[in-house]
């Protein structure tokens, strides 16, 4: 019985229950409530360190188990047995819990097959596309429309991070740069000016180091908010394009994040 389990290993109360059911070799359709409740509560006691909000979820489940256990102890009155179908016993109080466990188990298994796919995919590498924007005409660049949301921006940023990952030099020296979003907004606007007021999303990220990438991304969001630039996308999943709308803005807001 002295079986040590780290609670962080579980991704929730259902996960913990499944673990117990498996370990005690219990039939999921016929859970001995007294035993499982006892085991479950022992496990919660064994949690040394636990974030409060997570603890509450485990406690809710403990209460549920106790409720089911007590309902199973209640005698069934004669009067309730008028239904012929209920001759043996009423609806099983465990029913709902069993359904939840089975449903959760399905997705837990699906998650592990996703993990296998993730591992396989990490074995093969691709390259970012060659930059052909020099060869593109202005008419082609003018085909963008206005419908970029935060998810598109994040998607573009994620793509960018992936592209920069393999470009890392083999040896780097670390130089700490203290730059603010405000400074970076300035330099993004300067970059845009030098490219004739319009550039692709990726052109605005010349630096390789992560802090600068994030700083540039934040300043771009800030510029969008203040409508200094407009970000557009030519159809779903296409490259984002950034257009300069005005060159000046008020620095009245002092809540800029600084790097």
């Amino acid at each position, binding site marked *: 019985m002295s079986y040590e389990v780290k609670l962080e290993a579980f*991704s*929730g*109360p*259902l996960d913990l229950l499944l673990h117990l059911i498996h370990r005690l070799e219990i*039939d*999921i*359709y016929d859970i001995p409530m007294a035993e499982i409740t006892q085991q479950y509560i022992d496990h919660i006691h064994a949690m040394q360190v636990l974030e409060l*909000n*997570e603890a509450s*979820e485990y406690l809710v*489940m403990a209460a549920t188990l106790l409720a089911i256990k007590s309902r199973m102890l209640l005698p069934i009155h004669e009067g309730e047995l008028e239904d012929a179908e209920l001759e043996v016993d009423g609806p099983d109080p465990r029913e709902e819990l069993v359904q*939840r466990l*089975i*449903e*959760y*188990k*399905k*997705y*837990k*298994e*699906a*998650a*592990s*097959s*996703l*993990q296998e*796919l*993730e*591992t*396989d*995919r*990490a*074995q*093969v*590498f*691709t*390259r*970012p*596309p*060659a930059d*052909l924007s020099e060869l593109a005409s202005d008419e082609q660049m003018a085909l963008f429309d206005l419908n970029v*949301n935060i*998810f598109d921006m*994040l*998607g573009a*940023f*994620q*793509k960018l991070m992936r592209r920069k*990952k*393999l470009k*890392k030099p*083999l040896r780097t020296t670390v130089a700490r740069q203290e730059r603010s979003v405000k400074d970076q907004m300035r330099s993004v606007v300067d970059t845009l000016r030098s490219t004739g007021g319009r550039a692709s999303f990726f052109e605005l990220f010349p630096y390789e180091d992560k802090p600068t990438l994030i700083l540039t991304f934040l300043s771009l969001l800030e510029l969008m908010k203040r409508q200094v630039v407009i970000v557009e996308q030519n159809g*779903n*999943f296409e490259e984002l394009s950034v257009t300069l709308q005005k060159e000046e803005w008020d620095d009245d807001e002092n809540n800029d994040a600084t790097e």
Partner: protein
Amino acid sequence: MTKTMMLQSRIEALLFVVGDDGLTIKQLSQLLGEPEELVVQAMEELRTTSEEDLARGITVKEIAGVYQLITKSELADTIQRLVENPTVQSLSQASLEVLAIVAYKQPITRVAIEDLRGVKCERPIQTLASRGLVKEVGRSEGTGRAILYGTTKEFLNYFGLNSIEEMPPLPDEELVETEQETDLFMTKFQETFSGVK
């Protein structure tokens, strides 16, 4: 120099230039000015020859609906040496569970995901959104107009899937059910014949 060989070299060159943006058969057919079935045939030959030729390190694969040039998986070790710190930020158990639920049940709200897992899912969802694997695909009807989440093209790319239909089928409840029935049968059987209760 046959026509398909010409076509293969042109496809290879195009795929080299577009990198991980990749190209669909339809796009290739337009770019090359050749009918789609001919492109499909040339692509298949390009794939088999590059797969079979052990002297080559690159092959063709269709990921997230587009054909791309990829390095062969058996060369992963070689490529890892390029990267100083090859720890890939793989997803946590919680994130994978949330992602599995979104993938199979999309569009789905955060509350529905939480009901299924029995835990709060704000953080995993945030992680997944910031990595571009899930995104808002609409709003639910009714009060609150909760965000509905779905998977992205990046999700397909991240797991090397071609389309969402390629996801492995969900483990079947039927299986659990039948096991259960056999069990029940066996128990009944034993009870009947051994008189043990």
